[in-house]
Protein backbone atom coordinates (compact mmCIF):
# COMPACT_ATOMS: atom_id res chain seq x y z
CA UNK A 1 0.00 0.00 0.00
CA UNK A 2 1.39 3.32 -0.99
CA UNK A 3 1.67 5.76 1.81
CA UNK A 4 0.75 9.24 0.87
CA UNK A 5 2.71 11.89 2.74
CA UNK A 6 0.95 15.15 3.14
CA UNK A 7 2.95 18.33 3.46
CA UNK A 8 2.00 20.47 6.43
CA UNK A 9 0.46 23.79 5.23
CA UNK A 10 3.27 25.89 6.79
CA UNK A 11 5.99 23.89 5.12
CA UNK A 12 4.14 24.09 1.82
CA UNK A 13 3.86 27.86 2.14
CA UNK A 14 7.57 28.14 2.94
CA UNK A 15 8.46 25.98 -0.02
CA UNK A 16 6.26 28.08 -2.27
CA UNK A 17 7.91 31.25 -1.02
CA UNK A 18 11.39 29.87 -1.64
CA UNK A 19 10.34 28.78 -5.11
CA UNK A 20 8.87 32.20 -5.83
CA UNK A 21 12.04 33.92 -4.65
CA UNK A 22 14.19 31.60 -6.73
CA UNK A 23 12.13 32.27 -9.83
CA UNK A 24 11.61 35.98 -9.36
CA UNK A 25 15.05 36.64 -7.91
CA UNK A 26 13.76 39.14 -5.41
CA UNK A 27 12.68 39.09 -1.82
CA UNK A 28 9.01 39.49 -1.04
CA UNK A 29 9.60 42.88 0.56
CA UNK A 30 12.08 44.14 -2.05
CA UNK A 31 11.19 47.23 -3.97
CA UNK A 32 10.12 46.84 -7.55
CA UNK A 33 11.40 50.32 -8.33
CA UNK A 34 14.99 50.39 -9.52
CA UNK A 35 15.56 53.72 -7.82
CA UNK A 36 15.04 57.44 -8.12
CA UNK A 37 16.48 59.77 -10.68
CA UNK A 38 16.58 63.37 -11.76
CA UNK A 39 16.79 64.66 -15.32
CA UNK A 40 20.55 64.18 -15.62
CA UNK A 41 20.43 60.66 -14.22
CA UNK A 42 17.62 59.78 -16.60
CA UNK A 43 19.71 61.03 -19.53
CA UNK A 44 22.58 58.84 -18.32
CA UNK A 45 20.30 55.80 -18.07
CA UNK A 46 19.13 56.41 -21.65
CA UNK A 47 22.69 56.94 -22.91
CA UNK A 48 23.71 53.58 -21.42
CA UNK A 49 21.33 51.91 -23.87
CA UNK A 50 22.99 53.39 -26.96
CA UNK A 51 22.69 50.97 -29.87
CA UNK A 52 19.09 50.16 -28.90
CA UNK A 53 15.83 51.95 -29.53
CA UNK A 54 14.82 53.33 -26.14
CA UNK A 55 11.26 54.08 -25.13
CA UNK A 56 10.78 56.10 -21.95
CA UNK A 57 7.28 56.24 -20.51
CA UNK A 58 6.33 58.77 -17.82
CA UNK A 59 3.41 57.66 -15.70
CA UNK A 60 1.74 58.02 -12.31
CA UNK A 61 -0.59 55.85 -10.27
CA UNK A 62 -3.17 58.66 -10.07
CA UNK A 63 -3.24 58.88 -13.88
CA UNK A 64 -5.96 56.59 -15.20
CA UNK A 65 -4.82 56.53 -18.86
CA UNK A 66 -1.28 55.81 -17.66
CA UNK A 67 -2.52 52.75 -15.78
CA UNK A 68 -4.57 51.66 -18.77
CA UNK A 69 -1.64 52.07 -21.15
CA UNK A 70 1.07 50.47 -18.99
CA UNK A 71 0.29 46.80 -19.82
CA UNK A 72 0.86 47.64 -23.49
CA UNK A 73 4.43 48.70 -22.71
CA UNK A 74 4.95 45.43 -20.84
CA UNK A 75 3.66 43.53 -23.89
CA UNK A 76 5.62 45.69 -26.33
CA UNK A 77 8.89 45.20 -24.47
CA UNK A 78 8.41 41.43 -24.44
CA UNK A 79 7.60 41.36 -28.15
CA UNK A 80 10.38 43.66 -29.34
CA UNK A 81 13.20 43.15 -26.80
CA UNK A 82 15.06 40.72 -29.06
CA UNK A 83 14.79 43.19 -31.92
CA UNK A 84 16.54 45.85 -29.88
CA UNK A 85 13.85 47.71 -27.94
CA UNK A 86 14.62 48.85 -24.42
CA UNK A 87 11.87 50.35 -22.24
CA UNK A 88 12.33 52.54 -19.17
CA UNK A 89 9.40 53.54 -16.96
CA UNK A 90 9.45 56.69 -14.85
CA UNK A 91 6.83 57.21 -12.17
CA UNK A 92 6.19 60.83 -11.29
CA UNK A 93 4.33 59.91 -8.11
CA UNK A 94 5.11 61.73 -4.91
CA UNK A 95 7.23 60.00 -2.25
CA UNK A 96 4.17 59.53 -0.04
CA UNK A 97 2.60 57.45 -2.79
CA UNK A 98 5.48 54.94 -2.98
CA UNK A 99 3.31 52.12 -1.57
CA UNK A 100 0.81 52.75 -4.38
CA UNK A 101 3.62 52.62 -6.94
CA UNK A 102 4.92 49.33 -5.54
CA UNK A 103 1.43 47.87 -5.43
CA UNK A 104 0.81 48.88 -9.03
CA UNK A 105 4.06 47.33 -10.23
CA UNK A 106 3.55 44.21 -8.13
CA UNK A 107 0.19 43.53 -9.74
CA UNK A 108 1.91 42.72 -13.04
CA UNK A 109 5.67 43.16 -12.69
CA UNK A 110 7.19 44.54 -15.89
CA UNK A 111 10.43 43.10 -17.28
CA UNK A 112 11.85 46.60 -17.78
CA UNK A 113 13.26 48.94 -15.14
CA UNK A 114 11.06 51.53 -13.48
CA UNK A 115 12.29 54.52 -11.55
CA UNK A 116 10.62 57.30 -9.61
CA UNK A 117 11.32 60.91 -10.36
CA UNK A 118 13.50 62.20 -7.56
CA UNK A 119 11.69 64.32 -4.98
CA UNK A 120 12.50 67.96 -4.50
CA UNK A 121 13.26 70.70 -6.95
CA UNK A 122 10.84 72.21 -9.38
CA UNK A 123 8.98 69.76 -11.62
CA UNK A 124 9.40 72.28 -14.43
CA UNK A 125 13.16 71.64 -14.49
CA UNK A 126 12.62 67.90 -14.82
CA UNK A 127 9.91 68.32 -17.47
CA UNK A 128 12.07 70.62 -19.58
CA UNK A 129 15.11 68.39 -19.23
CA UNK A 130 13.10 65.64 -20.92
CA UNK A 131 11.58 67.76 -23.68
CA UNK A 132 11.26 71.52 -24.08
CA UNK A 133 7.80 71.18 -25.62
CA UNK A 134 6.41 68.84 -22.97
CA UNK A 135 3.80 70.64 -20.90
CA UNK A 136 3.84 68.04 -18.10
CA UNK A 137 0.76 66.12 -19.20
CA UNK A 138 0.68 62.42 -18.43
CA UNK A 139 1.07 59.89 -19.85
CA UNK A 140 4.01 61.01 -21.96
CA UNK A 141 6.38 58.82 -23.95
CA UNK A 142 9.69 59.66 -25.57
CA UNK A 143 11.54 57.56 -28.12
CA UNK A 144 15.28 57.60 -28.71
CA UNK A 145 16.94 56.11 -31.79
CA UNK A 146 19.86 53.70 -31.77
CA UNK A 147 22.23 56.66 -31.92
CA UNK A 148 20.80 57.91 -28.62
CA UNK A 149 19.08 60.91 -30.15
CA UNK A 150 15.49 61.77 -29.30
CA UNK A 151 13.30 60.99 -32.31
CA UNK A 152 9.65 61.13 -31.22
CA UNK A 153 7.49 62.34 -28.38
CA UNK A 154 4.03 60.91 -27.80
CA UNK A 155 1.59 62.93 -25.73
CA UNK A 156 -1.26 61.08 -24.06
CA UNK A 157 -2.33 57.45 -24.12
CA UNK A 158 -1.23 55.45 -27.16
CA UNK A 159 -2.65 52.27 -28.61
CA UNK A 160 -0.44 49.19 -28.92
CA UNK A 161 -0.80 49.35 -32.69
CA UNK A 162 0.30 52.98 -32.83
CA UNK A 163 3.31 52.20 -30.65
CA UNK A 164 4.26 49.38 -33.01
CA UNK A 165 3.95 51.75 -35.98
CA UNK A 166 6.34 54.19 -34.34
CA UNK A 167 8.99 51.75 -33.11
CA UNK A 168 9.12 49.39 -36.09
CA UNK A 169 10.93 51.73 -38.50
CA UNK A 170 13.29 52.81 -35.73
CA UNK A 171 14.23 49.21 -35.00
CA UNK A 172 14.80 48.54 -38.69
CA UNK A 173 17.06 51.54 -39.16
CA UNK A 174 20.82 51.01 -38.85
CA UNK A 175 23.32 50.64 -37.45
Amino acid at each position, binding site marked *: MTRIRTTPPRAAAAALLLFTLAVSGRAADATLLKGELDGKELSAAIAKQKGHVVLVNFWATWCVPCREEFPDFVRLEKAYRDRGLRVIGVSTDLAKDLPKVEKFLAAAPPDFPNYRKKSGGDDQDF*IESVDAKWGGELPFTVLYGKDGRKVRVLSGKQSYEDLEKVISPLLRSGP
Partner: protein
Amino acid sequence: MRALRIAASLTLFAALAGAGIALAESPAIGSAAPDFQLTSVDGKAFSLADAAKSHKATVVMFIATKCPYSNAYNDRMKKMAEEYAARGVQFVGINSNSTESVEDAVAHAKKHGHTFTIVKDPGNKVADLYDARRTPEVFVVDKDGKLVYHGRIDENYEDATKVTSPDLKNALDALLAGQPVAKAETKAFGCTIKRA
Protein backbone atom coordinates in the same frame (compact mmCIF):
# COMPACT_ATOMS: atom_id res chain seq x y z
CA MET B 1 -8.20 88.99 -31.43
CA ARG B 2 -8.31 86.26 -33.97
CA ALA B 3 -11.58 84.53 -34.63
CA LEU B 4 -12.02 80.92 -33.67
CA ARG B 5 -9.89 78.98 -36.09
CA ILE B 6 -12.00 75.94 -36.84
CA ALA B 7 -9.78 74.95 -39.75
CA ALA B 8 -6.70 75.09 -37.57
CA SER B 9 -8.44 72.96 -34.98
CA LEU B 10 -9.39 70.38 -37.57
CA THR B 11 -5.82 70.26 -38.85
CA LEU B 12 -4.55 69.74 -35.33
CA PHE B 13 -7.15 67.03 -34.75
CA ALA B 14 -5.96 65.24 -37.87
CA ALA B 15 -2.39 65.39 -36.56
CA LEU B 16 -3.47 64.06 -33.19
CA ALA B 17 -5.37 61.18 -34.73
CA GLY B 18 -2.28 59.56 -36.24
CA ALA B 19 0.44 57.56 -34.55
CA GLY B 20 3.11 59.67 -32.95
CA ILE B 21 1.41 62.87 -31.95
CA ALA B 22 3.29 65.94 -33.03
CA LEU B 23 3.20 68.58 -30.34
CA ALA B 24 1.78 71.85 -31.59
CA GLU B 25 2.46 75.26 -30.13
CA SER B 26 0.40 77.29 -27.73
CA PRO B 27 -0.10 80.95 -28.66
CA ALA B 28 3.04 82.89 -27.86
CA ILE B 29 3.25 85.18 -24.86
CA GLY B 30 2.52 88.71 -26.06
CA SER B 31 0.45 87.55 -29.02
CA ALA B 32 -3.31 88.02 -29.36
CA ALA B 33 -5.15 85.35 -27.39
CA PRO B 34 -7.40 83.46 -29.83
CA ASP B 35 -11.01 84.45 -29.29
CA PHE B 36 -13.69 81.88 -28.62
CA GLN B 37 -17.37 81.81 -27.78
CA LEU B 38 -18.82 79.04 -25.66
CA THR B 39 -21.89 78.49 -23.53
CA SER B 40 -21.49 78.28 -19.79
CA VAL B 41 -22.81 75.27 -17.93
CA ASP B 42 -25.62 77.49 -16.62
CA GLY B 43 -26.63 78.41 -20.17
CA LYS B 44 -25.05 81.86 -20.60
CA ALA B 45 -23.01 82.95 -23.61
CA PHE B 46 -19.32 83.56 -22.93
CA SER B 47 -17.01 85.43 -25.28
CA LEU B 48 -13.34 85.81 -24.44
CA ALA B 49 -13.11 89.03 -26.43
CA ASP B 50 -16.00 90.56 -24.44
CA ALA B 51 -14.58 89.32 -21.13
CA ALA B 52 -11.15 90.76 -21.91
CA LYS B 53 -12.57 94.15 -22.86
CA SER B 54 -14.55 94.47 -19.65
CA HIS B 55 -11.90 93.23 -17.20
CA LYS B 56 -8.35 94.11 -16.24
CA ALA B 57 -7.44 90.48 -16.82
CA THR B 58 -9.16 87.22 -17.74
CA VAL B 59 -7.89 83.91 -16.42
CA VAL B 60 -8.74 80.96 -18.66
CA MET B 61 -8.26 77.72 -16.75
CA PHE B 62 -8.52 74.29 -18.35
CA ILE B 63 -9.96 72.17 -15.58
CA ALA B 64 -11.39 68.71 -15.00
CA THR B 65 -13.80 67.04 -12.62
CA LYS B 66 -11.91 63.77 -12.17
CA CYS B 67 -8.24 64.72 -12.45
CA PRO B 68 -6.43 64.52 -9.08
CA TYR B 69 -4.07 67.33 -10.07
CA SER B 70 -6.90 69.63 -11.09
CA ASN B 71 -8.93 68.70 -8.05
CA ALA B 72 -6.01 69.49 -5.76
CA TYR B 73 -6.47 73.11 -6.86
CA ASN B 74 -10.25 73.37 -6.34
CA ASP B 75 -9.94 75.46 -3.19
CA ARG B 76 -7.13 77.58 -4.61
CA MET B 77 -9.19 78.28 -7.74
CA LYS B 78 -12.19 79.30 -5.65
CA LYS B 79 -10.17 81.59 -3.37
CA MET B 80 -8.26 83.25 -6.17
CA ALA B 81 -11.36 83.76 -8.31
CA GLU B 82 -13.13 85.44 -5.39
CA GLU B 83 -10.14 87.50 -4.29
CA TYR B 84 -9.27 88.75 -7.76
CA ALA B 85 -12.87 89.40 -8.84
CA ALA B 86 -12.77 92.40 -6.53
CA ARG B 87 -9.70 93.61 -8.40
CA GLY B 88 -11.29 93.39 -11.85
CA VAL B 89 -10.13 89.91 -12.86
CA GLN B 90 -12.50 87.34 -14.31
CA PHE B 91 -11.82 83.62 -13.96
CA VAL B 92 -13.34 81.16 -16.41
CA GLY B 93 -12.96 77.39 -16.15
CA ILE B 94 -13.02 75.37 -19.37
CA ASN B 95 -13.85 71.71 -19.28
CA SER B 96 -12.61 70.19 -22.57
CA ASN B 97 -12.64 66.56 -21.47
CA SER B 98 -14.81 64.45 -23.76
CA THR B 99 -15.21 62.03 -20.85
CA GLU B 100 -16.91 64.62 -18.61
CA SER B 101 -20.43 65.89 -19.25
CA VAL B 102 -22.07 69.26 -18.59
CA GLU B 103 -23.86 67.56 -15.70
CA ASP B 104 -20.52 66.39 -14.28
CA ALA B 105 -19.16 69.95 -14.53
CA VAL B 106 -22.25 71.42 -12.82
CA ALA B 107 -22.13 68.89 -9.98
CA HIS B 108 -18.39 69.44 -9.54
CA ALA B 109 -18.75 73.24 -9.39
CA LYS B 110 -21.57 72.95 -6.86
CA LYS B 111 -19.61 70.52 -4.69
CA HIS B 112 -16.54 72.76 -4.56
CA GLY B 113 -18.34 76.10 -4.35
CA HIS B 114 -17.02 77.33 -7.68
CA THR B 115 -19.01 80.40 -8.60
CA PHE B 116 -16.74 81.50 -11.43
CA THR B 117 -17.94 80.93 -15.00
CA ILE B 118 -17.49 77.38 -16.22
CA VAL B 119 -17.87 76.52 -19.89
CA LYS B 120 -17.91 73.21 -21.68
CA ASP B 121 -15.73 72.90 -24.77
CA PRO B 122 -17.49 70.45 -27.10
CA GLY B 123 -15.06 68.68 -29.40
CA ASN B 124 -12.16 70.30 -27.46
CA LYS B 125 -11.93 73.01 -30.11
CA VAL B 126 -10.72 75.66 -27.67
CA ALA B 127 -8.21 73.25 -26.12
CA ASP B 128 -6.88 72.66 -29.64
CA LEU B 129 -6.86 76.37 -30.39
CA TYR B 130 -4.67 76.99 -27.35
CA ASP B 131 -2.83 73.67 -27.60
CA ALA B 132 -3.84 73.15 -23.98
CA ARG B 133 -2.80 69.63 -23.03
CA ARG B 134 -3.33 69.16 -19.34
CA THR B 135 -5.48 70.06 -16.38
CA PRO B 136 -5.03 72.37 -14.68
CA GLU B 137 -3.46 74.63 -17.32
CA VAL B 138 -3.90 78.37 -17.17
CA PHE B 139 -3.77 81.21 -19.70
CA VAL B 140 -4.00 84.87 -18.61
CA VAL B 141 -5.27 87.47 -21.07
CA ASP B 142 -4.86 91.19 -20.46
CA LYS B 143 -7.43 93.90 -21.20
CA ASP B 144 -6.03 94.33 -24.71
CA GLY B 145 -6.61 90.67 -25.44
CA LYS B 146 -2.94 89.71 -25.30
CA LEU B 147 -1.66 86.55 -23.70
CA VAL B 148 0.54 87.45 -20.76
CA TYR B 149 0.90 84.18 -18.84
CA HIS B 150 0.66 80.47 -19.61
CA GLY B 151 1.25 77.61 -17.26
CA ARG B 152 0.54 76.39 -13.77
CA ILE B 153 -1.22 77.89 -10.78
CA ASP B 154 1.79 77.16 -8.60
CA GLU B 155 4.52 74.54 -8.18
CA ASN B 156 3.06 72.55 -5.26
CA TYR B 157 -0.06 70.61 -6.11
CA GLU B 158 0.19 68.59 -2.95
CA ASP B 159 0.19 71.27 -0.29
CA ALA B 160 -1.14 74.80 -0.74
CA THR B 161 0.53 75.88 2.51
CA LYS B 162 4.00 75.04 1.18
CA VAL B 163 3.85 76.84 -2.14
CA THR B 164 7.08 78.67 -2.91
CA SER B 165 6.30 79.78 -6.45
CA PRO B 166 2.74 81.17 -6.73
CA ASP B 167 3.12 81.75 -10.45
CA LEU B 168 -0.47 82.67 -11.39
CA LYS B 169 -0.78 85.03 -8.44
CA ASN B 170 2.55 86.65 -9.31
CA ALA B 171 1.45 87.10 -12.92
CA LEU B 172 -1.86 88.71 -11.92
CA ASP B 173 -0.24 90.97 -9.34
CA ALA B 174 2.32 92.15 -11.89
CA LEU B 175 -0.35 92.76 -14.49
CA LEU B 176 -2.56 94.71 -12.08
CA ALA B 177 0.45 96.78 -11.02
CA GLY B 178 1.23 97.59 -14.64
CA GLN B 179 4.45 95.59 -14.52
CA PRO B 180 5.68 92.95 -16.96
CA VAL B 181 5.13 89.34 -15.88
CA ALA B 182 8.57 88.09 -14.85
CA LYS B 183 7.85 84.38 -15.26
CA ALA B 184 5.38 84.20 -18.12
CA GLU B 185 5.62 80.48 -18.90
CA THR B 186 5.68 77.65 -16.38
CA LYS B 187 5.09 73.90 -16.39
CA ALA B 188 3.84 71.25 -14.04
CA PHE B 189 2.58 67.71 -14.20
CA GLY B 190 -1.11 67.26 -14.86
CA CYS B 191 -3.73 65.05 -16.46
CA THR B 192 -3.92 64.87 -20.23
CA ILE B 193 -7.04 66.57 -21.62
CA LYS B 194 -9.22 63.71 -22.89
CA ARG B 195 -9.86 64.75 -26.47
CA ALA B 196 -12.81 63.50 -28.49
